[in-house]
């Protein structure tokens, strides 16, 4: 999975340092209301929330001394696009069904 590299305005709970980075699914967490709608008091659509795991090498490149340490973060499905993650363990390869991104 790759985190979308977008920088939209407003309340977003996708950390900027992970945008554009590739990770693998550590575990799915189930549907949670979209915080980008919830933050403005709007009706919030439930979206699949996933725990993604990223290698330090993927996130920080040459700037890390410990490329095999990892960062986990919760990312809502509309921020994810299909991609093969580098360093993903084999067991994480079976794809998890993700709803396609919403039309703009």
């Amino acid at each position, binding site marked *: 999975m790759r985190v979308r590299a977008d920088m939209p305005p407003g309340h977003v709970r996708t*950390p900027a*340092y992970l945008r554009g980075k590739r990770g693998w699914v550590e575990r799915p*967490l189930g549907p*949670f209301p979209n915080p980008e709608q919830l933050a403005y008091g709007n009706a919030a659509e439930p979206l699949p*929330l996933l725990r993604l795991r990223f290698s330090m090498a993927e996130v920080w490149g040459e700037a890390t001394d410990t490329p095999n340490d990892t960062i986990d973060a919760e990312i809502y499905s509309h921020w994810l696009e299909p991609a093969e993650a580098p360093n993903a363990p084999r067991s994480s390869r079976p794809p998890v069904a993700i709803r396609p991104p919403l039309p703009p």
Partner: protein
Amino acid sequence: MPQDHHDHLSPSGHPYRPDDDHPLTYWQQMEIAVRELLIEKGVTTAKEIAGQIDAMDARSPANGAAVVARAWTDPTFRDALLADASAATRDMGFDIGPMRLIALENTETEHNVVVCTLCSCYPRNLLGLPPDWYKSRAYRARTVKEPRKVLAEFGVTLPDSTTVRVHDSTADMRYVVIPARPAGTEGWGADDLAQLVTRDSMIGTGLPKSPDAA
């Protein structure tokens, strides 16, 4: 002059500390205005607000320590905790409310540490209010980039054979670390073990106390 002496020095001979009075900030005024409006309109009462503050202050890392000690002594509970920490801790009376809790177990090969880079998400039901450093920009920015250096500053130096797993608490989950049970505590009961479990060991920035120090 004697007059100056009275004005600037305390009876102990030291200067008085200046008052740190300052005008209310924008957000402090906003909080007071909203609180007074909610009370005037009958939405809540001053007593309810004070009661909620008391409830927040009453939660302490002792709750989390009881959970960890039980996980160390009760394998069935440990499995339930790792499978669904919200349900397992709710059964012990530590309800997390609408949030969900994930327990992260430290082992010989993995060390977990929790940070919230976006704000200060923290498992308050188990650990009480977060320490100030947890909310600092330095901790939030550095923990995801150089966790081993941050851990070393907390006195935790890990061998290269241990993988560090940083958990950024970005959305609806809260995290508690289950530290590894200290060696030399065989046969200890849960109440004694809980005394070894520190707040920082449940954030991942510390280790439990050694049984010699207890």
